[in-house]
C-alpha cells in the first residue's frame, strides 16, 4: 500500500468499467491487456445460490478495508437468456451487511458465452489494478461456464457451500468442486454441517490433489459467530504458498488462454449474430465455411 496513492476517482473508475463491459472484439484487442502478474490480489468467491457468498464477501472486504487496504468487489450476476437483461442484486445484500463502507462494489452482468457476449472481466480486473486496488473480490454463482472462466483469472478460489448443498455436490463433482483453494461450509449452525464437511473432505481425498501440493482447508463459518478470521488466514496462507510455489509464467499463460478464449467466443458470436436468412438456409457444412470466412475477414 503506497501512502502516495491518489484518492480513488469513483466516477472515472465506473465509466472505465462500463466501457470494458460494452467492449466488442476490436475494443478488446485495442485495450492494454497484459495478462501477467496483477498488482491487486484477486479472490474468487463462488458457490450455489443461497450459500451466503455476498455476506462472506462483504465481511471479508470490511476486514481488509479496516486495514486501510483499497478493496473492490466485482459481483457477477446471471444474464437472462431470454431478454438479455439482468437483476443485479448481490451488491445490495453486501451494502446491507456493511452499510457506510468505502469498499467499491460493481455489479457485472455475466453475459454467458452461450449468447456470444462476455463480461470482459479480464479487462475489468486490469482497470482495478490501474486504480491501485490492493484486493479485488470476484463473486460468481458457481455452476456455469462464466464461473470457470473467472477462476482462471484469480489468485485464490473460495467455494462457499451450505449444509444443504448435498445435491449440488453431486452436480459439481467434475467442476468447481475440485478446483477451489479454500472450502467453506457456511451457515454451519444448521443441521448436517459436519456431514457436509466430511463429504467435501471425502471428495478432496479422492481427487488428484492429495500429495505435496496445496492442501485446501475446509472451514466452517456461521453468521452468528461473525468470525471470518479463519477464512482470512486461509486466504493469506494460500497467497503465501502461491508466492513460494507457483511459477508466474504459468499464471500468465493460463490468463492468456482465458483471454483468447473470451475474445474468440466474442468474435464467433459477432459472426453468428450477423447471419441472415439466406445463410441459415444453407446446409451446415456450407454455413460453417461461410462463418470461417467471415471470421477471417474480421481479422483483417
Amino acid at each position, binding site marked *: 500500500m503506497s501512502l502516495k496513492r491518489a484518492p480513488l476517482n*469513483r*466516477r472515472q*473508475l*465506473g*465509466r472505465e*468499467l*462500463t466501457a470494458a463491459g*460494452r467492449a466488442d472484439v476490436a475494443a478488446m484487442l485495442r485495450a492494454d491487456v497484459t495478462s501477467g502478474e496483477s498488482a491487486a490480489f484477486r479472490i474468487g468467491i463462488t458457490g450455489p445460490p443461497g450459500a451466503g457468498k455476498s455476506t462472506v464477501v462483504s465481511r471479508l472486504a470490511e476486514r481488509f478495508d479496516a486495514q486501510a487496504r483499497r478493496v473492490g468487489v466485482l459481483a457477477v450476476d446471471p*444474464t*437472462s437468456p*431470454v*431478454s*438479455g*437483461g*439482468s*437483476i*443485479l*442484486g448481490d*451488491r*445490495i445484500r453486501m*451494502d*446491507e451487511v456493511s452499510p457506510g463502507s468505502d469498499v*467499491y*462494489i*460493481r*455489479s457485472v*452482468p455475466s453475459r454467458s458465452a452461450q*449468447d456470444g*457476449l462476455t463480461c470482459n472481466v479480464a479487462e475489468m480486473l486490469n482497470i482495478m489494478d490501474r486504480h491501485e486496488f490492493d484486493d479485488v473480490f470476484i463473486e460468481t454463482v458457481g455452476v456455469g461456464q462464466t464461473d470457470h472462466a473467472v477462476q482462471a483469472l484469480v489468485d485464490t478460489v473460495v467455494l462457499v457451500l451450505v449444509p444443504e448443498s448435498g445435491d449440488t455436490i453431486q452436480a459439481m463433482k467434475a467442476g468447481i468442486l475440485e478446483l477451489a483453494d479454500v472450502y467453506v461450509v457456511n451457515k454451519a449452525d444448521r443441521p448436517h454441517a459436519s456431514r457436509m464437511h466430511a463429504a467435501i473432505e471425502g471428495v478432496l481425498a479422492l481427487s488428484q490433489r492429495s500429495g505435496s501440493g496445496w492442501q485446501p482447508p475446509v472451514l466452517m463459518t456461521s453468521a452468528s459467530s461473525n468470525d471470518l478470521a479463519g477464512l482470512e488466514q486461509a486466504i493469506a496462507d494460500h497467497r503465501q504458498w502461491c508466492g513460494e510455489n507457483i511459477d508466474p509464467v504459468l499464471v500468465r499463460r493460463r490468463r492468456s488462454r482465458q483471454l483468447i478464449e473470451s475474445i474468440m467466443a466474442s468474435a464467433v458470436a459477432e459472426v453468428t449474430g450477423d447471419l441472415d436468412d439466406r445463410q441459415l438456409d444453407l446446409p451446415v457444412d456450407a454455413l460453417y465455411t461461410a462463418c470461417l470466412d467471415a471470421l477471417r475477414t474480421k481479422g483483417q
Partner: protein
Amino acid sequence: MQPTDGGHIMSLQGKRILVAKPGLDGHDIGAKIITLALRDAGADVVYTGLRKSTDYIVRVAIDEDVDALGLSILSGSHNEILDDIIGKLAENDAADIKVFMGGTIPPEDRPALLETGAVGIFTSEQSIDEVLSELDQALGA
C-alpha cells in the same frame, strides 16, 4: 440477442439502470414491477430496496455508472428529494445520469420536476409499454 417475447420492447438492451426508494416510504410493489419490466426489456437493473438515503443512492448510481436512475416515491416528498438528488449528482460529476420518477406525483407538480431535471414522470396511469417506450426515447437522446 434476438427478442423472443413480443410483449416488451428489447430496446433497453445493455442499459444500466438503478431503481431506488429514497426516504421513509415503505411501498415498493411499483418499484419491483418496473425493475422486472426493465430487465425483461434487456436492461441491467439494480434495485436498492427500501428506505435508502439520497447519499447512498447517489453513491450507488456513480459506482455502478448507471445510464438512468429511477426514483420511486409515494411519500409526497418528491420535490425535495429530486432537488437533493440532482444536486448531489451534479456535485459528483454525474449530471449526465438521467433521472426519472414514479409514485404518487400530482400532475400539478410535474412541470417543476421536469424543470429541475427529471426526464420523465411515470405513474400507474400509464401502461408498462408506454413507460418503457418513453424511457427508451429519453435514454436514446
